[in-house]
């Protein structure tokens, strides 16, 4: 084991610890009784375990509701994003209708747009329709997701035209071709898109903040953030419990599917 290898590993291990430590600190903190949270020297490993913060989290806060809101809006949004992106991506790749270049260019242009510029008008739009604090008002503006169209189109372009022609000859209608042939062929792209769009929506804090104001309509990140916005002494134990609930399912999900996750990310960003 030469010096270079040792150095390499040291740097990598240190880096990994630095980056992962906040999570460790959060999870252990969520189980520490309130007084231990402030103990000096800090307890690197909880000496006493308590579930009090979690009980408080669920009893005094609509944490279940928050979790449900996030999951429900995430899944519904992803479903429609996949559907509409697949449809549009397929058409832009294979159907050379008049204006397809221009319209696709439009899609790309909106992809480059930062979301904050549309924030206020969208807020006013949703507000005027009376759809603030509703699932509809929250979800529908999120469904456009131009990146999804881009991703699917890139993928569909690799499907040989002969397949389409063969299916046409066999008497398949357009919808059948799309559903029975194209969709199965683009499953990896759909998987990657599902991951991307789900994370995008889950993490879109400012839209959640602005549209969902009622306590019971908040998403999990929003609800958890409200736990540390007390005016006086912040209840860190409670906040850590909230954070753990918000983070751990995502982490577990990632660990389970990390191979496809990572492949999907590399795939999705190969421009």
């Amino acid at each position: 084991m030469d010096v270079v290898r040792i150095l390499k590993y040291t740097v990598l291990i240190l880096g990994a610890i630095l980056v992962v430590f906040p999570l460790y600190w959060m999870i252990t903190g969520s189980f520490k009784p309130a007084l231990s949270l402030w103990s000096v020297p800090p307890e690197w490993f909880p000496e006493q375990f308590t579930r009090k913060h979690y009980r408080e989290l669920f009893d005094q806060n609509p944490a279940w509701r928050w979790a449900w809101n996030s999951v429900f809006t995430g899944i519904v949004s992803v479903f429609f994003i996949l559907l509409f992106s697949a449809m549009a991506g397929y058409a832009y790749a294979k159907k050379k209708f008049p204006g397809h270049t221009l319209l696709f260019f439009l899609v790309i242009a909106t992809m480059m747009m930062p979301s904050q510029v549309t924030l206020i008008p969208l807020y006013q739009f949703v507000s005027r329709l009376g759809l603030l604090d509703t699932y509809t008002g929250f979800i529908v503006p999120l469904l456009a997701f131009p990146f999804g169209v881009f991703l699917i189109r890139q993928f569909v372009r690799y499907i040989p035209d002969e397949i389409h022609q063969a299916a046409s000859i066999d008497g398949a209608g357009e919808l059948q071709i799309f559903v029975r042939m194209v969709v199965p062929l683009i499953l990896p792209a759909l998987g990657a898109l599902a991951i991307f769009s789900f994370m995008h929506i889950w993490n879109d804090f400012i839209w959640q903040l602005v549209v969902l104001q009622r306590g019971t309509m908040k998403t999990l990140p929003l609800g958890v953030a409200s736990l540390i916005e007390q005016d006086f002494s912040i209840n860190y134990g409670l906040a850590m419990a909230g954070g753990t609930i918000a983070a751990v399912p995502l982490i577990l999900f990632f660990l389970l599917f990390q191979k496809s996750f990572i492949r999907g990310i590399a795939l999705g960003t190969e421009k």
Partner: protein
Amino acid sequence: MGTHNTAWQPRAGTGLPPSLSRKWKSHLWGYFFILPNLLLIILFFLYPLFEAFRLSFTDASIGPSSYIGLDNYVRLFGDETFLRSLKNTLLFAVIIVPVIIVVSFSLAALMQNIGNGAKSLFRILFYVPTICTPVVLTMVWSWMYNTNTGLLNYLTGLIGFQPIEWLGSPSTAIAAMCVVVISWSIGQPLILYLSSMDAIPKEYYEAAQIDGARSFQRFRHITLPMVAHTSLFVIITTTISVFQIFVVIKLLTAGGPFYSTETLVYTIYRTAFGSTQFGLAAAQSIVLFLIIMVVSIVQLRFFKADH
């Protein structure tokens, strides 16, 4: 009808020559497929974009609004708070983007030749914070940065420092927030670098080695150019996302003390939803939009010119 009808032929009786009709049928399906997405884009991207432009020329607040021309923009560039916010945003970009590039690239380079198990493990470890919601991570850092009860002041206390108000003064707060953002941002570039480094054929290195090139030279002349396109992508996307920093500001400093740690998005948020000055906030968001566009175009031109 009884007319012979295969998929190549459209239904008889459309009045058009058969091949033309089939083509148009295909086109119509094309329009059908793009329709939902196109409608959504028009309604929720284009319309709001034009509306944002329009709003920026008004004094929209609660109640009736009137057109005031460029007043909002003029006001912005004389507004110290806004200029401070602009400066902060640029500062974040200038600090964070290079650090992320260098760190993630170096980590990826270090992770070559270390065996698949270890590589996989480190890859996961560095990516996990990227998976966690920024809100959650920011919250933990908020606790760690706490002046009285935070872990960091305990650690610095061990070396003899007095408790530092990390989030209390603009310079330390900005540095502190940079650290937070960097910690969750290196995961994705790391993965991209790893996969593009993996794509470099081993033969290049072997050939260079045979030619007598030392490892640093191999690195400089083979690795670096081959990952250039990944670097470009990372630079552009990271810059865009740094310009949009919001959560760390909202949860750590709320823009304070006295608006000194705001970034553009936070300012927009506060102007629109704190002071309900929608017109002014719209103008701010247009400024942000223009800055991002210009910076992205400049980056593309600059880096494409090199390669």
